[in-house]
C-alpha cells in the first residue's frame, strides 16, 4: 500500500517540476530584477498626442470629418445575406424571425436552417421586409396568411391547438383519477376477531 502510494508520488514529481519550470518561463513581464528598469517616463506633455499631431487633429476640417464619419461607422457594418444588403442589427432580426418559421419543403427545419430554394426565397422576403421597416409581427402575419399557422414552429394557442397544449394537464388529471380509483379499491382492513374466532385460532395454533 505504502509502496504504491510512494510510486504515485514519484510519478507526480517530474510533472510538478515541469509545471514550475513552465511557470518560470511563461511569467509575464520581465524577471523580478529587471522589473523596475523601465519605469514610465515622466510625461513631457499632458496630451496623449504629440504637439504636431495635436495641431492636425484639432483642425476644423478634420473634426468635422470625424463628426460625420464616426457615427456612420455604427451603421456601416453592412452584411449581405441571400442577395440582400442589410445592417448587422437587421440581419440579426431577420435570423430571429426565420428561426421561428418552418420550411414548408422539409417541414422539420426552420427557414433559416434549410437549403431548399423556397426557404431561400422566403429568407429574401423576410430581409426585404426587415429593410423596409416592417415589424416582426407583420412579417409573421405575412407568412401565416400564405401558409397557415403550420408555418410557425411554435403554434399559437387556439381551439385547433388546444389539445396539444392541454394534453400534459389532461394526462396529469387522468393519472390522479386512476390513483384515487386504485386507492378506493383496496379492501378495508378485516374487522377485529370476535371471542369465538380467537378461541378457534388458539385451537389451530396449538396443534
Amino acid at each position: 500500500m505504502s509502496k504504491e502510494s510512494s510510486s504515485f508520488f514519484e510519478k507526480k514529481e517530474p510533472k510538478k517540476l515541469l509545471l514550475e519550470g513552465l511557470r518560470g518561463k511563461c511569467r509575464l513581464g520581465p524577471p523580478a530584477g529587471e522589473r523596475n528598469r523601465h519605469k514610465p517616463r515622466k510625461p513631457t506633455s499632458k496630451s496623449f498626442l504629440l504637439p504636431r499631431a495635436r495641431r492636425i487633429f484639432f483642425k476644423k476640417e478634420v473634426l468635422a470629418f470625424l463628426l460625420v464619419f464616426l457615427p456612420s461607422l455604427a451603421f456601416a457594418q453592412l452584411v449581405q445575406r441571400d442577395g440582400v444588403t442589410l445592417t448587422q442589427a437587421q440581419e440579426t432580426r431577420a435570423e430571429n424571425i426565420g428561426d421561428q418559421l418552418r420550411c414548408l419543403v422539409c417541414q422539420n427545419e426552420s427557414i433559416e436552417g434549410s437549403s431548399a430554394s423556397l426557404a431561400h426565397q422566403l429568407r429574401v422576403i423576410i430581409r426585404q421586409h426587415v429593410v423596409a421597416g416592417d415589424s416582426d409581427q407583420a412579417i409573421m402575419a405575412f407568412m401565416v396568411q400564405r401558409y397557415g399557422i403550420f408555418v410557425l414552429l411554435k403554434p399559437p394557442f387556439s381551439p385547433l391547438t388546444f389539445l396539444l397544449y392541454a394534453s400534459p394537464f389532461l394526462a396529469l388529471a387522468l393519472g390522479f383519477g386512476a390513483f384515487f380509483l386504485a386507492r378506493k379499491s383496496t379492501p378495508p382492513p378485516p374487522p377485529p376477531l370476535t371471542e369465538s374466532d380467537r378461541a378457534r385460532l388458539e385451537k389451530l395454533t396449538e396443534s
Partner: protein
Amino acid sequence: MTTRRNLLYAAPLAAVALAGAGFYTILRRMQSNDYDPHALPSPLIGKRPPPFTLPGTNGQQGFSNTDLLSPPRPMLVNWFASWCGPCAQEAANLDILAQNGLTIWGIAYQDSPAATAAYLSQYGNPYTRLAADASGLTAINWGVYGVPETYLIDKAGIVRWRWAGALTDQVLMGTLGPMLHQYA
C-alpha cells in the same frame, strides 16, 4: 371492487388497442394515397386567389387574378414545372380531365420557356391558358410550397380545394370527382 380493478387494468390495454387502430387507419390511407401527413391545409380555401398578373408562355395566353373571378364552370389551376417528377406522373390524368371538358389553366413554376415547351410536347398540353411564374413570387402569395399543386376554383371564383402532390387515380375518384359534382 374487483370489477373496478379489472377496469383499471383494462384501461391501458384499451388505450394501446385504440392507438393501434388509429395507426392502422392512417397507414392504410397513406398507402392508398388519399391521406398525406405532410399535406398542409391551404389558407386560400374559401377565398379568391391573391392579386397577380402573369405573362403567357409557350405561345399561350397568360392570366391574372381578375380572369379567375367568375369562370362559367368550376375549373382547375395547376402549378407545375418541367423539372418536377410528380408533374410528369399526373400529366396523363390532367390530359384525361381536359379531354372530358374540364377547364385547366397552367402556371409553369420557375421554369424556362424552352423547357416548358419541351415538357408539354412530351407529356401533352391540357392547359387552355398557360402562364409562367419565373420568379416564383406569385407562388409564394398563393401559398404554393412545391409542385405540382392543383387548385379547384368554383363559379364564384373562390378556391374550394387544394391538392399538393400528383393527381393520382385515387385522388380523382375519391376527392376531385365529388368536389366537381358539389360545385358544378
